[in-house]
């Protein structure tokens, strides 16, 4: 607040001072028969005034004589131009002359009106440049030039210059003064100022990339979204990248690039400033400058063994030299609400369903007919049973409809974030400091599901000498994730509770106890917490000893400490449906888990650039990398706490348990990159890495992973020089082979772990050892080859940009069990390099941006797809419940539904007629689901079975669908008008099959289950044309057979989701300036506002289950620039 006051005063003083000069300065002069030009020149010589005019508009050759004594400038000018059509304006010391015809566009000095500036932007040949960014310097207000290179912009008073930027051109900053028309000629930038993207150990001009690289600027993507983790911010914006995982606050998400990776698993390497990160959740997205995704082998090869499935490079924000201090504060306040909730059927519908299943009395003791009578009575006269239940002959009959799922969810979750950053730079030093805070209380009732994070970051970069500079980046983060823990009541995502389940209290021996609902479990739960504190120190020293040579030495150390605490506090709930009391945990277990993880990295590398005759450009990068991860875990437990409120290890009276584990891995590598570029037309690049990893046995530890890529920028060919509208048209091709080491750290050691035996000796469980598995001492790297073809185009000066990539990725020698060993082996087969798969896919990215009048808009679209086939696997007999050659990943095997059995299918004694298809080992009845008989063999004629369970004899099963998400897409766009801006992101999947099954899919699916609203159309003798088959009491008979995976109940899991919609408003600068700020923006943002999905209620198309649900989030906030 103090700071703002000072700035405000300075502004006022300034404005007084500027008035003062023209008001207070008095001139004396005597001139005879001089030209106006000479008079003006005299005034300039004798005062601080200076004149601006166009000699075509102002006749300065006119002869005049003047004799003034101690007069103000206005009086002198009135004398000088009194009789003519010349008009003038005085702005501080600057005086602008023009004629009356042009006076309309003349801005009166000192007026508080915004000033409209127009103009045309051209290149050095004079051709108009569309798409140039024109911004009022120091603000976020701006526009872009139209197709004729013209622009028009309103400049708030007090702001003095415009900044013109365009890809590949030098930035221009033009002082406005009194001008109303500013025409600018943009000069091509000499070096470096073109759009560059971060690549491994360096940067590269986008136009010269030959690999498949997507890059985004975080501020563009994050915008004003109330998103506090990197993964959520990136979802749907980068083609080929999918992000999945839990929606619970603070739970880490997982990334995937370009589809299925390997049967042993595999995920992209995520690097923050050149080094892997232990905990991506620790990074505040506000601190991120850009994200590059290296998708093909050629761009990722410099990271060798860990980059097989792509690399995500995150670059954090730094600061530039010669930059005035910028201070930015932003916040957002978000409200979260769950909208997709499963709804059980009403008590009446449920009990009628039980009757239809054949229950006369339910497992919890109630007589169904009595229950139905009571429900009817309750419907007409609820006041008769004010408790919502009644007791007859020792059995409770529950009548009231409750909403257990609704009760466990808060009306609104709440999340707030605050970020403040300051950056600036002088000639030799620059810095950036930032602090961020986020606090989320999730969508469960109480504040027990939450996430809190504090980030502090400081970056300093200094030139020590002309050839040596160094930077230090220290980041600290502390986050706390919490979740309710209630011992045996911990399953909060139960989906089998009926709508008559009581929700209040029930008496046991005259005492009322809270009922075992999810709501009560959460309310009485203790708060389980995971506290991470993470420190990252990154030091970087740059040497430039010779022209063109840059050497970097980087040292990085990260320490992440996890402190997890979980306590099963003691409380008692009434079981509800049965008269019984359940304690949360009689032994009140208290558990503490501490994990200390350290990661250290040394990078040393050098880049040398040289040119030959301005035609041949070479860049060579080579370096060394060493990494070491050390993980040390200790856990302890104690029981029977003496205090339920203050649990501690020493405060328990049980038998203490403790344990530990260690995990280490080391990597040492050399890498290189070689670039050759001929006249920006022909491009060639090779990347490679020589890796040694501790995850492999000594003799197979090292691997060399090279790659090659070429590019041809057709737009730079001479024959294309007449086609002005195409700026870039580049064909790319690449090939590379990488290693995958995403396996257990000690996979080649036949280790035996200590375990507790299931036996008591001397009063305790003795320690035993696990059985060692089979290992192969010679296993080595999986190799992942990628072929990639790509096309980049940039048309109409970046207004239309497009990228298309098509690729094949072969994962060869996967470290799989290699095969399934028969059970006789007594263990699974050792890991060996025995399986191959291939993935084919493509990605398309298109964007368009333009301006029509005051309207600026843009739209981006991305679409990608991939498909994976196993091409080698040791499964000679092609047994179906394992991988086999030719298998498409994700295939769903099932039966073909063929209606229901009818009365006509059965003999009088209840057995099936001979000609009717039967199901092996199943006794069928009318209303049971019938399957199509696809294959007979000698022991199975007209019988549904699984044959030999092999591809050649799959019995009556076939592939009925595929659960991989196909045709992922994202659409994002913006629309700006004056100070208003709007942006949106849609994301979705166009094709996916899913087998949901279970309670949410089928009516009363199991022994303990219930009905949902949409599950009431099941078969009964009266309803033979139903959707669902027959259902049986106690889930007996063919109950579960009717739920077998089959065509009829396969779900379509495609969806479209509006991930974000943001509306922002920049306050007019005159308002913000009045309080001394450079800019203020307010915004409203909505996350996940709607989803189009065909799935049953409660099932999210991303997770395909009812679990911690996705919420819609409504937020607002403010951004302040000082």
């Amino acid at each position: 607040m103090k700071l703002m006051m000072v700035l405000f005063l300075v502004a006022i003083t300034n404005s007084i001072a500027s008035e003062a000069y023209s008001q207070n300065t008095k001139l004396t002069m005597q001139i005879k028969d001089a030209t106006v030009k000479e008079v003006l020149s005299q005034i300039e010589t004798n005062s601080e005034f200076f004149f601006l005019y166009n000699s075509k508009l102002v006749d300065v050759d006119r002869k005049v004589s003047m004799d003034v004594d101690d007069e103000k400038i206005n009086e002198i000018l009135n004398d000088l131009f009194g009789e003519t059509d010349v008009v003038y304006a005085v702005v501080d010391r600057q005086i602008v002359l023009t004629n009356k015809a042009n006076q309309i566009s003349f801005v009166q000095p000192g007026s508080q009106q915004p000033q409209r500036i127009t103009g045309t932007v051209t290149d050095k040949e004079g051709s108009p440049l569309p798409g140039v960014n024109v911004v009022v310097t120091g603000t976020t207000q701006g526009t872009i030039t139209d197709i004729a290179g013209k622009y028009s912009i309103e400049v708030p008073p007090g702001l003095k210059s415009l900044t013109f930027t365009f890809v590949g051109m030098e930035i221009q900053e033009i002082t406005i003064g009194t001008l109303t028309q500013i025409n600018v000629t943009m000069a091509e930038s000499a070096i470096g100022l073109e759009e560059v993207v971060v690549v491994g150990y360096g940067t590269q001009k986008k136009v010269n990339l030959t690999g498949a690289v997507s890059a985004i600027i975080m501020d563009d993507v994050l915008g004003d979204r109330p998103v506090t983790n990197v993964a959520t911010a990136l979802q749907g914006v980068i083609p080929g990248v999918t992000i999945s995982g839990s929606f619970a606050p603070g739970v880490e998400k997982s990334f995937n690039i370009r589809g299925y990776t390997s049967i042993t698993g595999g995920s992209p390497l995520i690097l923050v400033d050149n080094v892997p990160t232990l905990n991506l959740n620790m990074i505040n997205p506000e601190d991120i400058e850009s994200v590059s995704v290296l998708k093909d082998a050629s761009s990722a090869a410099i990271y060798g063994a860990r980059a097989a499935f792509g690399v995500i490079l995150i670059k954090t924000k730094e600061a530039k030299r010669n930059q005035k201090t910028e201070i930015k504060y932003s916040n957002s306040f978000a409200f979260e609400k769950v909208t997709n909730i499963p709804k059980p059927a009403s008590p009446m519908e449920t009990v009628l369903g039980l009757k239809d299943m054949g229950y006369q009395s339910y497992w919890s003791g109630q007589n169904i007919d009595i229950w139905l009578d009571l429900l009817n009575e309750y419907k007409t006269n609820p006041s008769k049973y004010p408790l919502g239940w009644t007791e007859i002959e020792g059995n409770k009959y529950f009548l009231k409809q409750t909403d257990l799922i609704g009760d466990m969810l808060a009306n609104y979750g709440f999340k707030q974030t605050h970020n403040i950053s300051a950056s600036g730079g002088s000639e030799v030093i620059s810095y950036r400091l930032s602090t961020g805070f986020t606090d989320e209380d999730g969508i469960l009732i109480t504040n027990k599901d939450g996430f809190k994070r504090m980030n502090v970051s400081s970056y300093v970069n200094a030139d020590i000498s002309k050839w040596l500079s160094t930077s230090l980046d220290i980041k600290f983060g502390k986050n706390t994730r919490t979740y309710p823990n209630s011992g045996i009541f911990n399953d909060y995502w139960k989906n089998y509770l009926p709508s008559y389940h009581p929700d209040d209290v029930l008496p046991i021996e005259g005492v009322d106890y809270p009922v075992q609902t999810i709501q009560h479990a959460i309310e009485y739960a203790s708060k389980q917490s995971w506290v991470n504190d993470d420190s990252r120190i990154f030091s970087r020293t740059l040497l430039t000893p010779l022209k063109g040579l840059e050497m970097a030495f980087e040292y990085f150390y990260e320490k992440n400490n996890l402190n997890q605490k979980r306590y099963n506090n003691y409380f008692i709930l009434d079981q509800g449906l049965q008269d019984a009391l359940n304690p949360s945990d009689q032994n009140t277990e208290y558990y503490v888990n501490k994990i200390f993880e350290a990661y250290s990295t040394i990078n040393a590398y050098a880049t040398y650039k040289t040119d030959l005759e301005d035609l041949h450009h070479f860049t060579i990068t080579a370096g060394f990398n060493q990494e070491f991860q050390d993980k040390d875990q200790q856990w302890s437990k104690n029981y029977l706490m003496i205090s339920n409120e203050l649990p501690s290890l020493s405060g328990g009276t049980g038998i203490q348990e403790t344990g530990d584990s260690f995990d280490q891995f080391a990597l040492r590598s050399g890498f290189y990159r070689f670039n050759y570029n001929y006249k920006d037309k022909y491009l060639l690049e090779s990347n490679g890495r020589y890796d040694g990893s501790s995850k492999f046995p000594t003799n197979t530890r090292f691997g060399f992973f090279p790659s090659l890529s070429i590019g041809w920028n057709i737009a730079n060919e001479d024959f294309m020089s007449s086609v002005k509208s195409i700026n870039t048209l580049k064909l790319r091709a690449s090939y590379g082979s990488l290693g995958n080491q995403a396996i257990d750290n000690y996979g080649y050691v036949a280790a035996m772990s200590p375990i507790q035996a299931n036996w008591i000796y001397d009063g305790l469980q003795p320690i035993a050892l696990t059985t060692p598995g089979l290992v192969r001492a010679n296993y080595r790297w999986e190799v992942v080859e990628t072929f990639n073809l790509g096309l980049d185009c940039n048309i109409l000066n970046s207004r239309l940009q497009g990228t298309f990539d098509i690729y094949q990725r072969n994962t060869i020698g996967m470290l799989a069990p290699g095969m399934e060993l028969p059970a006789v082996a007594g263990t699974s087969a050792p890991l060996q390099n025995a399986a191959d798969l291939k993935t084919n896919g493509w990605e398309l990215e298109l964007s368009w941006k333009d301006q029509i009048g005051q309207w600026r808009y843009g739209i981006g679209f991305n679409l990608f797809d991939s498909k994976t086939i196993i091409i080698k696997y040791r499964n000679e007999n092609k047994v179906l419940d394992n991988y086999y050659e030719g298998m498409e990943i994700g295939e769903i095997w099932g039966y073909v539904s063929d209606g229901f059995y009818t009365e006509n299918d059965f003999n009088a004694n209840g057995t099936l007629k001979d000609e009717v298809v039967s199901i092996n080992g199943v006794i069928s009845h009318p209303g049971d689901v019938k399957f199509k008989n696809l294959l007979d063999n000698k022991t199975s004629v007209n019988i549904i079975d699984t044959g030999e369970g092999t591809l050649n004899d799959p019995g009556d099963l076939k592939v009925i669908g595929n659960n991989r998400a196909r045709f992922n897409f994202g659409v994002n766009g913006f629309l700006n008008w004056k100070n208003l801006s709007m942006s949106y992101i849609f994301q979705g999947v166009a094709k996916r099959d899913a087998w949901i099954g279970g309670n949410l899919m089928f009516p009363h699916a199991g022994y303990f289950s219930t009905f949902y609203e949409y599950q009431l159309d099941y078969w009964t003798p009266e309803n033979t044309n139903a959707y669902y088959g027959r259902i049986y009491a106690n889930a007996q008979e063919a109950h579960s057979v009717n739920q077998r995976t089959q065509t009829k109940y396969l779900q379509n899991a495609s969806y479209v989701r509006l991930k974000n919609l943001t509306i922002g408003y920049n306050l007019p600068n005159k308002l913000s300036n009045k309080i001394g700020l450079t800019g203020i923006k307010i915004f409203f943002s909505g996350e996940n506002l709607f989803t189009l999905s065909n799935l049953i209620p409660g099932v999210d198309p991303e997770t395909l289950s009812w679990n911690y649900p996705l919420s819609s989030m409504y937020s607002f906030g403010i951004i302040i620039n000082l």
Partner: protein
Amino acid sequence: MKKLIYIIISLIFLNSCNDTFLERYPLDKLVDKTAFISYDNFKTYSWSLYNIFSDNNQLRRYSDFNSLYEGDVEANYLYDSDGRNRWAWQTVTPETAPGGWDFSFIRTVNVMLDNLDKSEMDDKDKAHWRSVGLFFRSYRYFELMCRFGNVPWLEHLVTEADNDQIFGPRTPRDEVAANILRDLKYAEENIKINGDGDNTINRNVVRALLSRYCLFEGTWRKYHVLSGPELYLQECARVSELLMDDYPTIADNFQHRMSTEDLRTYPGIILFKEYSTNVIMQTFCRGERGGAKHEEMHAHTIERYLCSDGKPITTSTVYDGVATMNDEFRNRDLRLLYRVPPPYRVQRTTGNVLWEYTGNPLDREYIDLMNSLDKTGLRPFPLQTWQPFTIDRIPHIAGASGSLAPMSNNTGYYMLMFYNIGTNVTGGGGFSTTDVPLFYIEEVLLNYAEVKFELGQFTQYIADRTINKLRPRAGVANMVVNELDDSFDPCRDPLVPPVLWEIRRERMAELMGDGFGFDDIRRWKRAEYFINEQPLGVRMDKTGMPPALKWVESGPDAGRCYRVDDPLSQGKGWLEHYYLYPIPQHQVALNPELKQNPEW
């Protein structure tokens, strides 16, 4: 310039040689070179072998309360009234194979056996640990052979290179059986007589397994007409006699074998599974006192129990007939009353706990009897559920008016084995600590009686040393061998000689619920006699009974209720090829050399 770069790069690469920086081994795990050196090393490893007693691949196991009586449910001595016997109803297929085709435990043992010779122990200690290993391997192979017949024999640890074993054919039963006998006899001779202390594998445990195994294999060979049953039968007789000498007394309370906190003090216990608070606890007591257990005995099994005069119901003079459940249970083998709670009725007063007697003396007849039989007070009648609520009647039919959900059942003959209110049953299930017996002298006595008959040596002397030691505590008169002729039980299975029938009857009564049933009826090759029986419930007043109950209209069982139909009337029933389990279809697909068992 280029020189400089060259120097830098070569410096960097020189540094990255294959040194100890990249050598990382687990810091918290052992490998076989370090795990098998000393006596204590082997002792440590051997504890993992004890897991076999609760392994889900064993039919007789103590893992959860649903698994307890499984062998007797498979045999249709007991039944799950919500389901159907899968053999009787022919729902077993190679796709849904009952399983057990699992050799991971054999591997676990062979790791230990193959490391013995490399250890630093002396020959005697090596022989001891070899014996322990062979005992466990035999225990597992016994089950494998019992289910599948021919099974691959794995004498040593299988490595990846042993394709002839991994993908080989099965070893003939003759060879497997002989190997098991060989191994157990080695163990008997070489194991330390007292094992490794309290409740560990020792010579008597080995002998107890030999007794069980040799009876099984000897009788299987005899009734399935395979060569050489005598060798096994004689071996069984030999070890059983040795054990009978070592354990001359048996406990005077039959029930306490299943409801004692510490079985160390119970006479005749050879090995038991110990449970202890917050160390290892069990769910069995809670299961029986809750609402999720559905096993019941059925009427024809109950009819096979003797009366107190030592005669079957058909010829007994003290049998009171079948008119009511009270009559049915009067003057019967007490072991029936311990397993199936006899009828009673009380009046609950307020709530679910408080009760008082009705005026009718018949309603409290068995309450008084049961409470007088139990001196501990830990098995009170009327029954208490886990909450605890008072069960006001037996039979306690689920869904009958006024019934409670826990401890209710469908047709009236509820199965109880671990009922005990002295052990903890609250807190979510697994908190009980009564021990369970694994090997005990009562079984050995019955093995001995049976094997002596099979050897043609069963006499009154043998009966007195075996069956007649068990009967006094069951309230049944002694067996008099020369009374046992065709007229002793006109209802017996006519294919079984009268004396043998009585020996088998005694075995059923003594071991009911301990899961021997299915293996017994298969080795006797009389499975269809038991499996094809329709499970029937009690005769009782139909008023207030749930409509789901069906009632036998005519014939000797008229008036009994039932839930499950007669499998024979539906064209189902035991099939000859069921004596061997099917090999899981998936395993045959992986290795066609295994060849499916006949007819599957």
